[in-house]
């Protein structure tokens, strides 16, 4: 202790050089990961597709409204237009750029609907993943760090929740307690999806924290009197970030799929709002006559899920080479 307060010049230099090298190692881990990620062609493709779809969903609806006057809920006033036209088909039967994905039964532009649906689907997926991240990381980190009896009880709770058929309960919840407003319904979705997808995250973080907590830097933090919450969230969680990021990236497509599944059943996003799942549900009704109503939202969604999965797998290989599949 005395030594640390009055450091002689030589040990101080030594200490500085140690922290310096450690910093270099610390940054190069992330830089290495980036390099590995960008070497992976499928992951890069995934990043590009995700970026394009996100960008299109964010600005696309506005652009379409400026260009053609159509938005996801705009029904043309002219009654002759209130029917489903094929892609690139004008009402007169010729070629037209107005509806690259065609229109639905009421004459609404499907491209505008798919992009607006993308906004909702992406938002639900992101926020629900964030909810699961917050719950899962705190729960897992606390269980892993505190250990002992509390850890036993907390993990037993996770085991029990794991074996619950939660889909069934979510369906009952959303069917019987629909929110009064579409926005409230979205909030209910965030809550329902986030609350059921944190279990694996908690297990992963707990495992990481348990292997980290006996290392010297935690001992040092405890010796210098850092409080327990600070040790958990300032020292342990940042060091467990790699697997957390990987799992969060893989949670996004799975939550997106769950949202689409619920919306397909008519339990998720309600009209007038649209999501990819509810668009697919509408499209499936008129499949035999107007197949484009299902194909465009369905394919957009499948493309997005595929890209997110590629990105997630790429991140896993990049951040944790030991986890890489042969």
């Amino acid at each position, binding site marked *: 202790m005395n030594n640390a307060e009055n450091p002689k010049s030589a040990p101080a230099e030594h200490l500085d050089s140690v922290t310096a090298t450690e910093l270099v190692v610390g940054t190069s881990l992330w830089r290495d990961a980036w390099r590995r990620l960008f070497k992976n062609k499928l992951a890069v493709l995934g990043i590009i597709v995700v970026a394009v779809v996100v960008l299109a969903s964010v600005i696309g609806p506005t652009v379409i409204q400026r260009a053609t006057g159509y938005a996801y809920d705009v029904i043309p006033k002219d009654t002759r237009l209130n029917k489903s036209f094929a892609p690139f088909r004008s009402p007169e039967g010729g070629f037209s750029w107005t509806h690259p994905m065609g229109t639905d039964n009421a004459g609404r532009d499907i491209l505008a609907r798919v992009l607006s649906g993308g906004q909702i689907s992406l938002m639900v997926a992101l926020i629900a993943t964030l909810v699961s991240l917050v719950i899962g990381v705190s729960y897992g980190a606390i269980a892993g760090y505190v250990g002992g009896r509390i850890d036993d009880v907390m993990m037993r709770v996770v085991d029990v929740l794991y074996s619950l058929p939660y889909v069934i309960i979510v369906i*009952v919840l959303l069917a019987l307690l629909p929110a009064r407003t579409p926005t409230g319904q979205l909030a209910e979705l965030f809550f329902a999806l986030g609350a059921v997808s944190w279990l694996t995250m908690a297990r992963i973080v707990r495992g990481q924290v348990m292997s980290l907590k006996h290392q010297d830097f935690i001992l040092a933090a405890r010796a210098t009197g850092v409080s327990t919450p600070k040790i958990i969230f300032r020292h342990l969680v940042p060091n467990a970030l790699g697997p957390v990021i990987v799992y969060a990236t893989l949670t996004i497509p799975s939550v997106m799929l769950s949202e689409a599944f619920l919306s397909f059943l008519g339990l998720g996003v309600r009209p007038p709002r649209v999501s990819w799942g509810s668009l697919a549900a509408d499209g499936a009704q008129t*499949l035999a006559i107007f197949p484009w109503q299902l194909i465009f939202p369905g394919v957009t969604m499948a493309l997005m899920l595929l890209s997110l999965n590629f990105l997630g797998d790429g991140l896993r290989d990049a951040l944790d080479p030991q986890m890489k599949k042969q």
Partner: protein
Amino acid sequence: MLRFIIRRVVIIIPMLFIIVSITWGLIRLAPGNFYLGERKLAPAVEKNLREKYGMDKPWYVQYWKVFRNFGHGDLGTSLKYEGQSVNQIIWRAFPVSATLGLCAYLLALAVGITTGTLAALRQNSWVDYACTALAMVGISIPNFVLGPLLVLVFALTLFWLPPALWDGFPSKSIVLPAITLSAIYIAYIARLTRSGMLEVMRSDYIRTARAKGLSERAVVMRHGLRGGLLPVVSFSGPALAFLITGTVVVERVFALPGLGNYFINACFNRDEPLIIGIVAFIAIAVLVLNLLVDISYGFLDPRIRYE
């Protein structure tokens, strides 16, 4: 082992209690009633209805009634399908879902294990890349998109198979639903088999098998697969979860009279006894099957020990 099984069986009862209570609570919390439709009922009629279904009694009496009926193995009478008991409906609908699920799972095992093994044996060849890509696509196409697309191609364009019909197991009508339901399993099983086989084929006992002069076929079939398929067995637990969500969607898409379809309709109709009955039934099925999966690990992999 026996203690492990007993402990797991005992925990099923409180879990079932929790699930049924949550469901019952949600139904109670929900505003309105099953008989409140578009039409306004006369007060006298409403009073009679409430008396008939025991809704005039305090909540704890109604709550207790649910569990008392459970104890007798009687799940009550459906409110929507008049004159039919919940037990009858479940026993009629469950075989449909079970047949569909089993067919899909067996199909997925056959296709998934074959492609996964081929991919692992020809690592980094075009076979491997094709199988990996196929698995990725299988995970990414939602079954409610895949199902209608298959209908569009095989039923509405080529007229090979019926679009929506239920004829039971050996029939044309089960082909499309089973393929739709199995897509995601095929993808997962192929991935798991591939990585499991890659690891196993490098191990010493495979080298021993080769060294003692076994044919490559015998090495793979008799020694490789036994170890390589363990991850596939551990997948059976999560597979159950996929099965439930999957059958609900597939039964909806193909209009099959299965448990999932009845369940969704019951939720929309607020058919209280039917909701609680199906939830309890599915919960028991899931809990028991999970237990069986856990027990089977112990037999398949002698390295796993239960305290």
